[in-house]
């Protein structure tokens, strides 16, 4: 049993239906106190629904939400130890920065001089010292989101909910704000739950990531686990730049299974996986781990190889992608650093052998 007080958020069989449509199916998971947790997934997958259920903006049709061990499933947002940062620049347009940040404190009847001190402190925390008198329309998008952040943090909520907070910012600013969010979270030490559809954003900010799609929690893990060893086929497809290959299990021996691809048989590491002969499975290899190799290289069992037809080279700046086609028609990509010495003799239509180190492929049974 984990200590309940260390668990900031626990969600049990939480579900939300809109009429006959399931926005969220019985999802269960928990988040430790002080974690930066990202809910990552495609649009319409239910991640915002999940966040809003945790915040109390919508009511669940099934299941419960516990915050610090207390059942808050049917409490309104202001009765929960959460605070929300919205996707749009959700500032009060008629109040200046200081009044926006102060408003929640004013509602709590905090003495005026205490409010002023807290507002100043929080504005310096988000890097907006001296912006007190600015109006929202005088601020850039990034600055407006900082003010929103300050407005939420100043209330001493210990779970901050961020609903696509950076979606409206341009790419460069989003990157900077990611690091800024991470820095602020580490400084204040409270739990952040951050909804995003941008994997780079999630990987940058989060300690742990949950993949949410089609109303289900697909899988969760540390940012590194999710990127390097995704368990589910969906995760491998969604995160990173993975090559997915489907086949049938031909046999299992120890920690490895043999997957029959019709045009080749390959061995895939399967630690603890329950795949029996005849099962339809897939495996994935990150594009940066795929190489055009000499067929002889695969002979010792450390490498696996399949035949392919070379299609084209795509220069992407930092990396160069080599596009190839497998015999079953699926396209795969091998990505190498552009300044790596490369075989420039590859031509479109040329038969090649594509390989990867055996332990780099990840088996997905679902």
């Amino acid at each position, binding site marked *: 049993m984990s200590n309940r007080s260390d668990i900031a958020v626990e969600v049990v069989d939480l579900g939300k239906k809109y009429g006959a449509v399931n926005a969220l199916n019985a999802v269960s998971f928990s988040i430790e106190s002080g974690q930066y947790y990202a809910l990552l997934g495609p649009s319409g997958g239910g991640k915002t629904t999940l966040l809003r259920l945790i915040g109390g903006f919508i009511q669940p049709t099934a299941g419960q939400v516990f915050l610090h061990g207390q059942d808050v499933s049917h409490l309104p947002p202001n009765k929960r130890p959460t605070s*929300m940062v919205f996707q*749009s620049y*959700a500032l*009060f*347009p008629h109040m200046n920065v200081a009044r926006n940040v102060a408003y929640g404190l004013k*509602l709590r009847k905090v003495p005026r001089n205490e409010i002023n001190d807290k507002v100043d402190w929080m504005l310096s925390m988000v890097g907006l010292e001296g912006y007190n008198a600015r109006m929202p329309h005088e601020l850039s998008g990034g600055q407006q989101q900082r003010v929103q952040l300050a*407005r939420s943090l100043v209330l001493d909520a210990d779970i901050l909910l961020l609903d696509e907070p950076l979606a409206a910012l341009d790419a460069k600013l989003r990157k900077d704000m990611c690091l800024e969010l991470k820095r602020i979270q580490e400084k204040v030490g409270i739990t952040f739950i951050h909804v995003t559809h941008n994997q780079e954003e999630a990987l940058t900010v989060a300690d742990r990531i949950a993949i949410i799609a089609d109303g289900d929690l697909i899988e969760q893990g540390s940012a590194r686990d999710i990127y390097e060893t995704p368990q589910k086929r969906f995760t491998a497809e969604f995160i990173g730049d993975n090559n997915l290959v489907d086949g049938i299990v031909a046999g299992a021996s120890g920690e490895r299974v043999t997957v029959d691809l019709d045009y080749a048989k390959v061995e895939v590491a399967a630690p603890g996986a329950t795949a029996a002969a005849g099962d339809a499975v897939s495996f994935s290899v990150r594009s940066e781990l795929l190489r055009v190799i000499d067929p002889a290289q695969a002979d010792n069992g450390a490498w696996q190889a399949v035949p392919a037809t070379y299609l084209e080279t795509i220069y992407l700046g930092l990396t160069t992608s080599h596009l190839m086609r497998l015999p079953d028609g699926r396209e795969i990509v091998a990505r190498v650093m552009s300044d790596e010495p490369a075989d420039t003799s590859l031509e479109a239509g040329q038969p090649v052998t594509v390989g990867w180190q055996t332990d780099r492929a990840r088996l997905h049974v679902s």
Partner: protein
Amino acid sequence: MGENGIQKWVFYIPVIFFVLFFAAPIVLTIVFSFFERTQFWMEPGFTLFAYENFFTSARAENYVFSMLHSAAAVVVSFIIGFPIAVFVRRRVAKAAQHRVILLFILPFMISELVRVFAMRPVLGRNGVVNNFLIDIGIINEPITVILFSPLGVVIGDVMSFLPFMIFAGFLAMEAVQNYVFEVCDDLGAGPVSLFGDIIVPLAAPGIFAGSVFIFVNSMGVALVPTLLGGPGAVNAGLIANQAIVALDFPLAMAISTIMILTLVLLLYIGHRLFDLTKVLEPIS
């Protein structure tokens, strides 16, 4: 070319229309107010007699009362009409909002004369209101203060011009983004704080616009006090009307000029407070 010429005229026509039928009459009104009165018309000259006549008679007093009645109509319209606007914006499904607001346009489609006149059997001595109150035993004698009285005029003004407050209020509320309400939920703003700190300030330009419409009409439309007013229960429009009936045209023009100045002053104050250019632009 020809089409260019036509396009040009399409834009000039309203300009000409407004110069001819709005600007010119206003200028003439002001000019005529300084003319000398004759027995049946007036003759060119410059005299402040009409203004002197206005300010030294009971008319000035009535004019001030008219402003007070109109202000009362504005306040009552705000109390009744603005919550309707807020309610429709907040509680009615998005797709149905405009239809619900349309319901409040329908009374406008009935002639104002008919609408206002139809209130007499309701408000009168033996009217619906009095009979009801006597029947349920709240009063013994009919109340006479609700018809042919300042109160009757205020009720009539509210009935006639309430839709202005609902429209303007709804348009202003429509421009208030949904997130504003969610943030307030999150911060724990109760209904009073939400209304006073957030909704009214954000809708202020719209509320002011609706208020000006109601105030100006309550001041100027002579029909309401003609049908529902009585001794001392007149408005500026009716005072000017009476001057015309008495063939004192410079006086009627002077009263109109004073009304125009009152309105301009009001708009100036409103503009300084709320920046009226924002009335038609969504708050961002």
